[in-house]
């Protein structure tokens, strides 16, 4: 499957949320990375057709999705931000309900539900009420519902928000397993969510696509752009306003800073292990104050 986002524009009044956004995806995990308010959720909502764009098109296998009608929804699976689902349903009931909405045949839905519960490790909890689920269990159930129709495009909006580290790792592994024969688009502002599983990263800021590349390439591009230095405690405040600091650790000899960009102190030395987080900071041009 191939999905093209073609020159999408979206404004609310005078505020431009998306400005000529274009990129193409085929099978694999894609990370849509951007800070809060960058336009990720708006773009996702346009891709899943929850809202309409002002101009531009979403093209699925060379066909404009508006021409695909209901058939398009057969091809997508979607997990929105912070879904709380129905508290008075059990996991199985919820998946049965969603299978009905997705138009699955009764004969195929039962086995599919069992299969997905196994995949997201909820088989033992399938008869528990969703109200008793932890945030991570709810997210995993959310993934299961998104996968019910075996979608070729799986879209997840901030899927790891509110999860503890263990749940986050578990979630990442599930996504990795699902990405072999479909597009998985993960919108997030947490770099570590996609750093190790995304084949491609789309950096978005202020409604524009800042760059689209593989994580390796982005990290390589950062070589010679990341520096480390130690500054006295009293100089920390001025450094924060001058440089783009990606990390600061207080130790006995002062603050150990990690600085991204062309602007760095004289005593700084180049760092030879840049990260995707450094690239994110570099492209988004944000200073951490």
């Amino acid at each position, binding site marked *: 499957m191939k999905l093209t986002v073609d020159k999408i524009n979206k404004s609310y009044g005078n505020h431009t949320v998306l400005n000529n956004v274009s990129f193409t995806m085929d099978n694999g995990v894609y990370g849509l990375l951007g800070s809060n308010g960058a336009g990720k959720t708006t773009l996702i*909502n346009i891709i*899943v057709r929850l809202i309409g764009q002002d101009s531009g098109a979403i093209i699925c296998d060379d066909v404009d999705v508006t021409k695909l009608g209901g058939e398009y929804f057969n091809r997508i699976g979607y997990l929105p931000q912070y879904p709380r689902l129905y508290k008075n349903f059990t996991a199985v*009931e919820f998946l049965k*309900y969603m299978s*009905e909405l*997705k138009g699955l045949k009764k004969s195929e839905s039962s086995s599919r539900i069992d299969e997905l519960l196994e995949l997201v490790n909820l088989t033992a909890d399938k008869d528990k009420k969703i109200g008793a689920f932890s945030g991570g269990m709810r997210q995993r159930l959310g993934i299961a519902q998104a996968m019910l129709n075996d979608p070729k495009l799986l879209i997840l909006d901030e899927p790891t928000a509110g999860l503890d580290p263990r749940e986050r790792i578990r979630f990442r592994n599930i996504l990795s397993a699902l990405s072999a024969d479909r597009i998985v688009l993960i919108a997030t502002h947490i770099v570590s969510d996609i750093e190790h599983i995304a084949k491609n990263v789309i950096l978005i800021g202020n409604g524009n696509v800042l760059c689209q590349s593989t994580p390796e390439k982005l990290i390589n591009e950062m070589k010679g752009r990341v520096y480390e230095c130690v500054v006295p405690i009293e100089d920390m405040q001025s450094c924060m306003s001058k440089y783009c600091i990606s990390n600061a650790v207080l130790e006995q000899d002062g603050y150990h800073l990690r600085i991204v960009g062309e602007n760095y102190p004289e005593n700084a030395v180049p760092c030879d292990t840049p990260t995707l987080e450094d690239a994110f900071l570099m492209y988004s041009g944000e200073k951490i104050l």
Partner: protein
Amino acid sequence: MKIVFFEFKKMMFKPILLILLVVFSVIDVYLLTVNARDYAPFSSMESAEKLYNDCCEKVEGKITNEKISFVIDKYNETAAKISGDFYTDYDTSNSYTGYLQSDFNVFSELYSGIKRVYQYSENTEKAIEKAKENIEFFSESGNAAQVKKYEDMISVYEGRKVDSFYRTDGFEAYFGHNFSSLIALLMILFALSGAFSSEREIGMTSLIFTSKRGVNGIIWPRLAASVLICAFLVAWFTLVDIATVAVTNGLYGWENPLYSLPSYTYTTVNYSIGTHVILSALLKVVGLCSVSFCIISISSLSPSTLVSFSANITLIIMLILFDDRARFGGSKVLSAFFNPISLFTLQDVSKLYTTVEVFGQSITSFAAEICVGLVVFAFLFVFSAFIMRLSSRKVWRGTR
């Protein structure tokens, strides 16, 4: 069909609703027990009540000469005992209840009850004679509408008779109890106020909208589920009320005509009490469904459940006040017929022979209200589906 079940479960199977159902049922049973005891003759005197119950058991059913003789004999016997000076102290050796006056009161009640039933046909004939006189009068004055009205009245009352005697306090108490309708209204308010708004709050709307069936997949099942909830609530409270009255007073004579009940003597309908129980429950379902469609529509337009709940409770209070004003304000205005709440208390309308003019034709208020109620139900069903679709399009365009 399965999705209707899920919609039903989603809206109805909430802990708060189940708790409310139990609490409201207990309150309903308590109030009905208190009210129903007021309807029961001699409820304040155990021995008199027992005597009345025993005698009713003896004479209930088809009226025979033997039963009539028994009541008249006992009535005369106890009447003779209290003529002139009589013994007023407690004495069980010379009386049934311990008091001569109480004995007389019991048989007097029984006598007037059986007399009313026995003479029902005769009294109705008198009413028909009066109606015929009116027809003659209005024919002479050329008032065709009034002539038609009295002709219709005669066709309703003609041939009426009551063959069987049963005590009536149970059904009188049952039909006089409207509190369970109010509870059903409150329950539906709690169940459906969040039908759409709570889904938006928990992020389910976007999952539904991005499914193959989309919003169209849930509109009709959700409306069908709300009808099921209304039917369930009405059936539940009807059964609770029937069971309560059956225990406190007893419900006798289900197959007797409705007009055998004292307060329905001049009712416009000729079916049995049992039929009226079923019909009034069905009309309550129709009325409750109409209200539920309004609640769902408001929920689909509301940004939050709190807003939806506030708007809906305001709507229900207004409908109740409007219905009260129309019912007790002296004359029944036609616009009140469009109020779905009026279907909850339709048994009051059926008590008397009242008519309304529709396109020059005179029809009974009872029939008119049923027809209008069904039209309002159908209209709100379609209208709420339209509103739900409209509100989903609003989401689609991203204006919310």
